[in-house]
């Protein structure tokens, strides 16, 4: 029997139809190996969906967050040392916190526990790398980097290319790398590192004399000349001129007031309290401030996709007990504030909230070793977990898992979400169980909005999809 690879662009033909067109169950099984996953075209594309990607920088400790273990786990036999006894009194008292079917570690504060029911956890993700840049870029683009170089575009850009532009700054990336390869200009990120950068983008720092401004804009509108055209190899000149036009629109839209924390009105006062901006102590790139900016950008219709740094400097190879728990706790605190803010904000449809229209994914480049190193820290670990919340995804679920010994990722049934320590050979051979990767997670995020995820070459975790 010969197989012909399907034409991906032929969206009228469903995958099932193609399988049925060929005879033999064995042919169907083999074909499954060759067929790229199809988009869930039965689901309609949700072009109004918003997305938030919360990045915990440095490699988070799952034992303190998304994949905790009992405090009395024996390091010698289980090869896992939760280390909860080294934590401060408050965190030790928390221990493992249960919210329905979710278990969260002691670094997760009440501010997140209050909204945890809106979330689901994906455990047992293999990163295939222990390098920060590689893990981070893998999660950002969904494709494994080439060496250290990111491959392809950020997931946010891929999403925007599918749903189109509906906001002034469709894509903001705050403190997170962003990549756009052959993407329309609106899908490329406005990269900022702090709230002041965002304000810089949205307000003139120096006011040009109106006549000089008029002269410059007219000159820009007539650009480029011959030399500029010659320099347009790879589209660089075109990109520049498009950027000029976009930057003008940021100013004329007067978007800066959305992010102006010096406003003394009741709304801003409430936001300052909700996001605990005082804790940032004036640091405009602090997690509290970044989360605030992300929330405002989504709620006020400034952006459709926002990536922001929710926690930083988690890469604690030494002095884990002193440094890691507090920083991780801050990350969950700001994430909790963001989810609560979206939940409290009416959406565009009656009876819906912004959380019902926004999909959130929280990730880190990898997790940390379940055992301590010889300088009281935890090193890089190939396993990982992810948190998802919001629109298009089931809530309150834990899918996937890690081994009882050593916490390495174990295989998961994408349909049921159940993880198996010892799956049968048939389960493996049939593809029923797979080790989860960032591709599966991102495919799930895209599928939740009815978007095409074929480029990821992985199936979504159907257990999380309604």
């Amino acid at each position: 029997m010969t197989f012909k690879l399907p034409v991906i662009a032929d969206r009228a033909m469903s995958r099932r139809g193609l399988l049925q067109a060929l005879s033999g169950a064995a042919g169907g099984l083999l074909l499954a190996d060759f067929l790229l996953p199809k988009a869930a075209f039965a689901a309609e594309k949700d072009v109004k969906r918003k997305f938030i990607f919360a990045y915990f920088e440095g490699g988070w400790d799952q034992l303190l967050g998304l994949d905790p273990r009992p405090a009395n786990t024996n390091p010698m036999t289980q090869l896992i040392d939760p280390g909860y006894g080294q934590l401060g009194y408050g965190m030790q008292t928390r221990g493992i916190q249960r919210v329905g079917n979710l278990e969260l570690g002691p670094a997760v504060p009440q501010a997140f526990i209050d909204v945890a029911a809106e979330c689901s956890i994906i455990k047992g993700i293999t990163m295939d790398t222990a390098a920060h840049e590689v893990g981070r870029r893998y999660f950002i683009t969904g494709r494994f980097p080439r060496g250290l170089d990111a491959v392809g575009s950020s997931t946010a850009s891929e999403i925007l290319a599918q749903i189109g532009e509906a906001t002034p700054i469709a894509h903001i990336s705050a403190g997170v790398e962003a990549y756009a390869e052959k993407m329309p200009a609106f899908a490329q990120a406005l990269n900022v590192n702090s709230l002041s950068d965002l304000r810089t983008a949205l307000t003139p720092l120096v006011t040009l004399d109106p006549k000089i401004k008029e002269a410059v804009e007219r000159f820009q509108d007539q650009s480029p000349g011959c030399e500029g055209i010659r320099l347009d190899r790879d589209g660089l000149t075109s990109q520049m001129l498009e950027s000029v036009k976009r930057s003008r629109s940021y100013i004329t839209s007067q978007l800066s007031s959305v992010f102006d924390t010096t406003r003394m009105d009741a709304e801003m006062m409430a936001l300052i309290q909700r996001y605990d901006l005082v804790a940032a102590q004036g640091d405009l790139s602090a997690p509290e401030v970044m989360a605030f900016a992300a929330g405002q950008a989504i709620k006020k219709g400034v952006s459709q996709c926002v990536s922001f740094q929710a926690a930083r400097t988690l890469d604690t190879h030494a002095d884990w007990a002193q440094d890691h728990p507090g920083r991780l706790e801050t990350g969950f605190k700001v994430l909790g504030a963001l989810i609560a803010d979206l939940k409290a904000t009416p959406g565009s449809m009656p009876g819906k909230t912004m959380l019902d229209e926004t999909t959130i994914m929280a990730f880190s480049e990898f997790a940390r070793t379940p055992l301590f190193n010889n300088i009281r820290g935890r090193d890089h670990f190939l396993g990982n977990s992810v948190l998802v919340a919001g629109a298009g995804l089931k809530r309150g679920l834990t899918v996937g898992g890690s081994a009882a010994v050593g916490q390495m990722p174990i295989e998961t049934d994408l349909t049921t979400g159940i993880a198996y320590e010892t799956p049968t050979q048939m389960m493996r051979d049939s593809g029923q169980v797979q080790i989860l990767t960032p591709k599966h997670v991102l495919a799930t995020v895209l599928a939740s909005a009815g978007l095409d995820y074929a480029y990821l070459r992985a199936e979504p975790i159907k257990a999380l999809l309604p």
Partner: protein
Amino acid sequence: MRIMTVVLTLVAFSASAQADAKCELAKPIDGQRLLRRLSLDLRGYTPSYQEAVDQRGSAEVSAAKLDSYIQSADFVGTMRKYHEQLLWPNLDSAELDPLQQKLFRVDMDPGMGEDFIYFSILRALFLRSVTQQFPICRNEPATFDAQGQPVMTPLVVNGQTVAMQEGYVMVEPYWAPGTQVKVCALDAMAPASGTGRICTAKARMSPYMNQTCNQFGVYPNAVQPPVPFNDAPIACDSAFAFLSSECGCGPNLRLCQTDETAARLRRSLIDQQMRVVEDVVSQDLPYTEVLTRMRVPMNGAIAHYLRYQSRASFELFGETDATNPIPPQLSYLDDTWVNVDRGGRHSGILTTPGYLLKYMSNRGRAHRFYNAFECSSFIPGGPLPSPQEACSKHEDLTKRCGCDACHIRLEPMSAHWGRFAEYGFTPLDEGRYPRTAAGVCTNFQSIDQLFRCFRFYNVQPVGEEEAYRNQLRPYVFRTPDEVAKLETGPRALAQASIDSGAFASCTTRKLWGYYMRREPTPDEESTVIPTLAADFKSGGYKIKDLVKKIVTQPAYRRMP
């Protein structure tokens, strides 16, 4: 429809430009634009007006002009930037200023002019605190008892004693000679012997100190015979000095750091690395010396740190390095750079503190070398297999399935740094750190020795590690061949890369990409790049010659 917009806009560009009659889209760059391109690439800025005037009427940039650019100090500056992109110099994560020796400055009278006192928050917790967590001293001159110890008086709040406080003393700090600053007396202590005693009965009167002494005291009592602990002497510049109430910041506060001194140290360590590169480029030395050179520059900030402060951190292991002498004439403020000739296993930038502290593990050090100087990456072979499979349980990563694809090469490469401390920069010489633990892990004389034993030796092996019990950790799983590399040091790795041609080829390829702003075409891969690399090697690895050859390639002046 968006593509149509783009296409039509481009058509509009060229249509309108052609209407101006002189827009040839494909032609070699003219002399002025070539001059501009060369000036920006080789010096980092546009040409001067005089240079533009001199260039008029000539389609070529003269050899003399090109040489002047390449011989300029600005070219060295651009090479420095190029190497920053290879080495990623950032030391924010290195604990160069541990809390135990960090002084913070507090304004005792905000809004009324400056009245600062320097104090250590750790010593505040251990030596002053009763219930108040980080009490500072009193803002009045200290008094001393007959033994020369500061007199402590209670701080009472709402009828309760919350802290015991001493006063301040005036000290001339090492970072600002000729001036005096207020320092809490306990923090300014400078015993003449340079030593104190840890966990004395007096020190334990503080509940926090007592608790910490109890926590640390578990370790000395876990071995037989127990290690001397309570009242044991400790050098005041040691990481354990915070357990002593008798050690402070030493004469002129030289053992301690502030935010400003720490920032200057970080800049200096990065600068030191980059100056090695600058020296090689500016002196037209063989480029291989970047990896093999023994001579490095040192300034006063680094000298002061190595003399007095590098041993103060638990995390960052910075014992005295006999193979890296400290010029005696360098004082803290001295910003001149003095050349130091290192010995031992040092090798170019690969063993400078800046490199070793940026890449804190031996694997990290090897990985960066592999990326930067061999243009290679470690790419896993695929997803990890089940952890239940037998081959997933190897402790030896060169055998563990899923890991072996990379580690079979990475482990031997990492071994080259085996005799340099991880999470630190100290060479581990055979005298103090023999291959087996016999001398280090028996007959413990101090808590410091105990911690070094556990830090560096495989005294609690797991599974396959058993065969390497009590060996210095980098020796675990190493074959005899790899042990030979370990004992030679990173120089052996560098030399192997140079001898194989990988170094020349990678350098050529990276510089090609840097100046051409693109990867080589297939034709260039098979013809131009190998020729340039061979010339680079046979010509003595002169980087300026290689750059000149690249920017005089026809491709460099094609437009577009």
